[in-house]
């Protein structure tokens, strides 16, 4: 048996390297359509953006109209107040909406993990906003938040508060944050729910025997066991919120004034309204770098703190 195993090992290594057998090649053919899509719609645009970031180009002039700009676009970004305003708004949008979504999602996940009548239906209801079409969400909130006749202000009016929401430069961004949180909480709670199902039961039993209270159990068992899930959610939500575009384009178009012109929308304006594709690509690269740093910092912050570490 030993001899046969030893003899078989080199044969396996020979098959793996360096090429692919015709049979393996057929396997690749099966994934080829998908791979082709990734190459055509992700890889090539990605490389194009990196290259275009160092050019001055308006698209309409064709490839012949591309001129090399060196680092000019990046120098211009550093001096562009519009970019920094958009970056600041994006930080506020991400910095408020993501933690709120995670905290509320966690609370909801814990609540829905308990035995409740109609729990399955409740879970489905809370998850619904995540799968509803963006346009439908936008139009519904637009009506709900109409400053004069919307349901939200009808209720708030009882307390003497009537924000202008999307028709106010002070309230438009908070309104978008409310919508983002509403849309994301159900998703977070579902992810937390699945993580809670995997929480080590024996530790809770031991804690019960030791007479630990609810807060002590949450702090020492639940939270550390949920930390990897939390980091996953933070990273994906930060990336998603940084790219937030659909609702802004649909509802505020970056306004009133430039009060909701986040980085993604500013990039869209620069590229698709002003036809400055080189500059828009440079903004994209800078944004990518910023989100990457934020993601790495988030990742680094949790190292060694999870229950299993």
């Amino acid at each position, binding site marked *: 048996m030993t001899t046969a195993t030893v003899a078989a090992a080199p044969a396996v290594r020979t098959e793996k390297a*360096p*090429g*692919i*057998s*015709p049979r393996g*090649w057929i396997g*690749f053919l099966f994934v*080829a359509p998908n*791979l*082709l899509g990734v*190459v*055509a719609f992700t*890889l*090539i645009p990605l490389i194009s953006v990196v290259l275009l970031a160092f050019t*001055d180009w*308006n*698209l*309409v*002039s*064709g*490839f*012949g*109209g591309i001129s090399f700009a060196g680092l000019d676009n990046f120098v211009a970004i550093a001096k562009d107040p519009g970019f920094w305003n958009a970056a600041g708004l994006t930080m506020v949008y991400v910095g408020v909406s993501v933690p709120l979504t995670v905290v509320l999602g966690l609370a909801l996940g814990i609540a829905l993990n308990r035995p409740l009548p109609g729990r399955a239906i409740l879970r489905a209801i809370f998850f619904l906003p995540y799968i509803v079409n963006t346009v439908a969400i936008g139009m519904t909130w*637009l009506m709900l*938040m*109409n*400053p*004069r006749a919307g349901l939200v202000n009808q209720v708030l009016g009882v307390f003497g508060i009537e924000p*202008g*929401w*999307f*028709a*106010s*430069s*002070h309230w438009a961004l908070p309104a978008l944050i409310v919508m983002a949180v509403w849309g994301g909480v159900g998703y977070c709670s579902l992810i937390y729910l699945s993580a809670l199902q995997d929480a080590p039961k024996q530790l809770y039993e031991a804690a019960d025997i030791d007479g630990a209270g609810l807060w002590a159990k949450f702090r020492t068992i639940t939270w550390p066991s949920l930390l990897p899930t939390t980091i996953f959610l933070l990273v994906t939500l930060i990336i998603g919120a940084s790219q937030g575009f659909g609702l802004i384009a649909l509802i505020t178009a970056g*306004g*009133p*004034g*430039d009060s909701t012109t986040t980085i993604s929308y500013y990039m869209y*304006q620069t590229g*698709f*309204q*002003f*036809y400055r594709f080189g500059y828009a690509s440079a903004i994209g690269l800078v944004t990518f770098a910023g989100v990457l740093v934020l993601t790495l910092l988030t990742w680094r912050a949790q190292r060694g703190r999870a229950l299993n570490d």
Partner: protein
Amino acid sequence: MRNEVSRRGFLAGMAAVGAAAVVPGCSSGGGATSNVLQVWGGVPAASGPQKVVDAFQRKFPQYQVNYTRFVNDDRGNLKLDTALQGGVDIDVYFTYTQANLALRAGSGLAADLTDRVAADPDLKVFLDTDQPRAFLDAGRIKALATAREPYFVLFNEKLRERAGVELPHEWTIEQFRATARKLTTARTYGCYTIPDVARIKLGPNYWYDGDRSNFGDPHFEQAFRLGREMIADRSAFPWREVLARHLDAYQQNSFLTEEFHLWSTAPFNLRYLYDAKKYPHDFKVSFAPPPTVDGGDWNGGSYNNFVMVNPKSPKADAAWEFVKFWLTEGSGPMLAGGKLPTLGNVTDDQVVTGVLGKEPDKYFDVDSFRRVVLGADPKLSTDTRLAGFPEINLAYRQQRDLCWLGEKDPGPAIRDVRRLADAAIARTERSS
């Protein structure tokens, strides 16, 4: 071993196939062409273009024409631009905004029509440079306006008579304001918004002064201040509602439901006013000219709907035949969409029934229409200076919104427009 393909080689192959699939779509090379003349426009085919195409094909049976509609917004125009640049089979296309006009003409996407226009006596009006009806790039004609869009002010006759207000034959911006105030009631605002005060006073290229912007001209601040004051005294529609309800695209609904009275608009919106099935209402509409501003009497409207020929079209002669047909014999069917022909080659009666529907007297005060739209010769402006146009347009709209929401005073708002516009002009002229 010879049958084996390395993983790296396979991936490289896939990349090459992907690139081959994508790059032609981005290249400036020619794509597949057909014998059918391809025309792209922003007006739905059913609102006139299809009838023009049918009439053209009847007269020239040797040509087949396919009309493709693109939505005239940012995304629709981008689709047209990428199609033109990518070599999609387009022979004739329309452009509706000045910024796109300059971009396309300046990027080699528009054929030089100068010699063809000059050779045709019917089209000599396009050689006029005082009130240009053509877009000129470096002195060469690259686009021809197919429609003229004069502005006017519409009155709701029922509410006007109830308020005892005279229908003005000529008036000033101060009288416009006073009239709006008289027409304001507990449930109806006096007007939707104010006419373009600075445009009426300054005419074409009013955003530009030499190599800088012209927002230092006091009429721009006057417009911001007037709008804000009228919103504050309820003689103009609250801007908060306009933004919250996205009303800019649906002004006709609020006019027809009598939410506001005076409506400064152009012929393309008249189609809503005679369609009783979709837009029922119980009042007639009358017409007044735009008010004057400090003696300035530019209309505020423009020559528009520019037709262009793709310089890569292999059917240039057929394309020109079609353009010429659209401008001359084809202009009748376009009246239904409120497109008054640039050449004026339709009778007044054709315009009345074309623009005001089959029962014009039922929905309109036709006498005032004849006086304001047909009898007058309004001064229409077509901008030829377009440096930084989209950036300036955005800056102007953003600051106007803040001002009319009551969040920023007119002075600082217009100063910010000026600062942003100067920067946009400087950047654009530096890079060109």
